């Protein structure tokens, strides 16, 4: 069974993402408290609430339009490192999708790849630097591998699972980018908050398609 990913899916994805940020707000703050400055959950929650407002204000007509609007809202409401990084990610994904009404599996994998590339282009982090890249890169790889079968839901599930595993895998890492890097060795033993929020967002994408 192939799920059709249209603008309804995109809006549901963003709505579930907003719910996830609200639900996990404290958890993300706590992760950031350990190795950062205690704001990641607050920032993401504020940003996705703004996304919801914008979605209600000007309902998008295509998945690409939904992601572009998200990019703009996050860029202007999140701040910090995560704001521009997620903003770029959603913007690049939106550009990749163009104004197509439907997203098929290859397009989906390509959009996720574009998002990841945007994050890397802005943040210059490599894999293993203990950032959100460590969730996105395995997610993109898993999505690419799954895309061949043409099953969009399978692509999203593969991406979500890989992102979750990637986030967990940041635990032992020593951060080399972002605020956690100032802690040096002391950053090991904690999960990267941006990787955790990335996993939540990708899980929401799968949830919206299920």
């Amino acid at each position, binding site marked *: 069974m192939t799920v059709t990913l249209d603008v309804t899916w995109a809006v549901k994805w963003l709505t579930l993402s907003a719910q996830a940020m609200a639900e996990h707000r404290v958890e993300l703050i706590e992760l950031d408290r350990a190795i*950062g400055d205690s704001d990641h959950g607050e920032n993401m929650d504020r940003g996705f609430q703004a996304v919801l407002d914008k979605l209600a204000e000007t309902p998008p007509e295509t998945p690409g339009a939904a992601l572009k609007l998200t990019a703009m809202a996050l860029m202007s409401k999140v701040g910090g490192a995560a704001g*521009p990084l997620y903003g770029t990610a959603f913007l690049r994904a939106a550009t990749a999708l163009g104004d197509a009404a439907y997203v098929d599996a290859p397009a989906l994998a390509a959009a996720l790849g574009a998002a990841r590339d945007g994050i890397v282009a802005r*943040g210059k982090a490599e894999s293993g630097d203990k950032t959100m890249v460590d969730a996105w890169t395995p997610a993109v790889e898993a999505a690419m591998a799954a895309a061949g079968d043409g099953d969009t839901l399978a692509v999203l599930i593969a991406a979500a699972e890989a992102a979750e595993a990637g986030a967990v895998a940041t635990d032992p890492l020593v951060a080399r980018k972002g605020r956690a890097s*100032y*802690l040096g060795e002391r950053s090991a033993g904690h999960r990267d908050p941006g990787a955790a929020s990335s996993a939540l967002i990708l899980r929401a994408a799968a949830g919206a398609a299920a």
Partner: protein
Amino acid sequence: MKKLINDPRAVVDESVEGFGLAHADLVTVSAEPKYVTRRDAPVAGKVGLVSGGGSGHEPLHAGFVGLGMLDAAVPGAVFTSPTPDQILPATLAVNSGAGVVHIVKNYTGDVLNFETAAEMAQAEGVEVRTVLVNDDVAVEDSLYTAGRRGVGGTVLVEKIAGAAAERGDDLDAVAAIGDRVNQNVRTMGVALSACTVPHAGKPSFDLEDNEIEIGIGIHGEPGRHRIAMEPADGITDRLMEPILSDLGVASGDKVLLFVNGMGGTPLGELYIVYRRAAQVLADRGATVERSLVGNYITSLEMQGCSISVLRLDDDMTALWDAPVHTAALRRGV
């Protein structure tokens, strides 16, 4: 968590509103998007200076908006850099045509958001230069990190570059003197207690009663290492050593010594630290030509301090002494 606040999410809104009310003679506040400009901005022919960053470091940055210092300050959420949709209009508002300098503390978030805003401003025809402040010697392996953070030196960059802009230096000259200050200043901080971010509601790290954090930043992030509590002189020595060796302070150097409170430390204690730091400099044969002691770049109610040493040249000293009229720093006016 006990704070003099209402809704934790309204902290920045209400605080900036109060600031605008208290200093209506100096500044204009834009509520949405949020930024603070010098009342007479844009000043014809003058290079505009914009800085900003997360809130919670007051008086930085809004407290330094005014004659001889910043033209605009852009406050983000607490400890969260502001967004391009604030930075851009602030930049446009203070551009008189002579271009705008962004003074950016080196944190990933600040760098990215100011970068985007600078690009957008440039697209609108405003020339923008960026002075990146990264004076924190606590960050050792800057190759394997996001680089050194911008901390106490920011205040000195803003004052001196601000004075250069006020006397009519052009865009490149203002940026150059800002860079020169940054290259000649080093800072290191210590926390005796954590701070509590309003929306987090809990201290940003946990310290035992007899522990202190050496090498903290200004965002309540833990420092580089944790040691047992010590007398002030010992702590001061620990802060001064990396500053002086990294800066390479030599006998005969003239310096500005800046002891900054993190927000929750009594001023009297800052002078105890100042005393020792001045002794250490005297022992090195350096002359303290100028000094600054007080809460200028803070971390909410954190207890602790940072020490900054700036190696002065005559131009920097003259610009330091130049008139300034802001809420938090004033002289000659």
